[in-house]
Structures are given as structure tokens and as C-alpha cells.
């Protein structure tokens, strides 16, 4: 299997469509015969990332690349950015809106879950310009 790349646009402020990229990636990884435990880790990390893009990032783009060795995920938004990345990585820290909380989100588990379920994660952000999260799950 050579490298496969999937691209998705995540709409901003549309909670009803959040998870479409994760769901599609999950199904494609299943068809590729990837280990179910690895698929679950990718799904969790990607879904959390998608939700963050909807809640905080005003939407953006997701690129997922698959090789026999790893699944790489790049999530890029052009939202308000993260002033203190170390603080945002702490469990329980959240700046989510009341709307997000009313739907069951905003527990401050997004970035911590993404870190917990991936082997590599790098978060870069510029306040007022946006955030890019690069994650990888090794196969």
C-alpha cells in the first residue's frame, strides 16, 4: 500500500456535521484492514480535533495520510487561535461556549484526549490567525 491521502472540509459552527471526517476515515481504515485498536485511536483523536475546529476554529481543513507504518492527521483552522497551548492541554481547562456545553462538549478533554490517543502530537497556534494540529498514530 502506497500513501493514501484524504482531505475534508470541516464547517464552522455546524455541530450537526461534526464527525463526518472521522466517520469517513474510520470506514476507509476498516476497509484497508487496519488494526481496530489503531482505528479507534485515530477516530477518537480526529473526532476531538474536528469538534475543536467547530467550537473554536470556525471550521477548517483536515488532511489524513495513511501508509503501512502510520496514520498522519493535520487539522488546520483559521480561527481565534490558542493563547496558552500548555494550559489548553490540561484536562478540564475549557473555553467552550454554553452552546457547546449544552450539547455535551466543553469538558476540557479535547486536546488531552488527542494527546492521549496518539503517538505524536504537535500544536502550533497564532492568536488571531488560527491553529494547526499535527498528530500521528503508529501502526
Amino acid at each position, binding site marked *: 500500500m502506497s500513501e493514501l491521502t484524504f482531505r475534508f472540509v470541516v464547517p464552522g459552527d455546524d*455541530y*450537526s456535521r*461534526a*464527525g463526518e471526517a*472521522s*466517520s469517513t476515515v*474510520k470506514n476507509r481504515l476498516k476497509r484497508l484492514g487496519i488494526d*481496530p485498536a489503531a482505528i*479507534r485511536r485515530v*477516530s*477518537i483523536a480526529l*473526532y*476531538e480535533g474536528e*469538534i475543536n475546529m467547530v467550537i473554536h476554529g470556525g471550521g477548517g481543513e483536515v488532511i489524513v495520510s495513511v501508509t503501512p507504518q502510520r496514520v498522519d492527521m493535520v487539522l488546520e483552522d483559521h480561527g481565534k487561535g490558542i493563547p496558552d497551548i500548555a494550559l489548553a492541554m490540561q484536562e478540564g481547562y475549557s473555553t467552550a461556549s454554553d452552546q457547546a456545553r449544552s*450539547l*455535551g*462538549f*466543553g*469538558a*476540557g*478533554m*479535547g486536546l488531552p*484526549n488527542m494527546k*492521549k*490517543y496518539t503517538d505524536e502530537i504537535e500544536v502550533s497556534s497564532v492568536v488571531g490567525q488560527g491553529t494547526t494540529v499535527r498528530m500521528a498514530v503508529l501502526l
Partner: protein
Amino acid sequence: MTTLQLDQLDGLTKLTRPAEAREITCIYCCDLLSLAMAQAPANSAWVTVMGNRNTIAVASLADVACVILAADTAFSDDCITKAEDEGVTVYRTAAPIFETAKRIDLLL
């Protein structure tokens, strides 16, 4: 046990059309979707009062066996369609979360 046994449980109504039976290995109760996303065990019966499209997305990605909406939680037709599209079986009951979980636990 499987979801087929849940079909027979008094007070439980299946909202989605019949799907392939799933093995249920444990019960999971949670209303915070981020927590459920990370912690819901695969093949669990997930009891919650959070009934929206995102619940279905989490249920599908976490690969739970089914979702049980407790306390007569509302669930729109749109959500039922999404659940069927994703292959997630959804039940509803008037009983509260703890009581629902206790009743299912007797069947495990």
C-alpha cells in the same frame, strides 16, 4: 447478551429499525460526549440522556453496541435517520439512568 435481548426488555422501545444483533459486554453511563468518546468501551450498552446527532457520531466512533436514551430523552427523526445510517441501534426508556443500567446489568 445481545441487543436482541434488549428488544424484549419491558419499558424499552427501539427507535431505530432492526439491525444486525450486537454483543453487549458491559454497560457505560455518561452524558459528557468528550468523556464518552475516550472512555466508552467498545461493545458497551451506553446509557445517556444526551440525545443529539453528536451522540450518534460518538457511539459510532467508539463502536458501542447500542445507545439507550434514559428519562424519556427526546430524539428527533433526523437523529434516528443518522443512527440508522451509521448502524447504531437506539432505544428509549422512561426510567432514569441508574435504574436502566441496573435492569440491563441483571441480563449480563
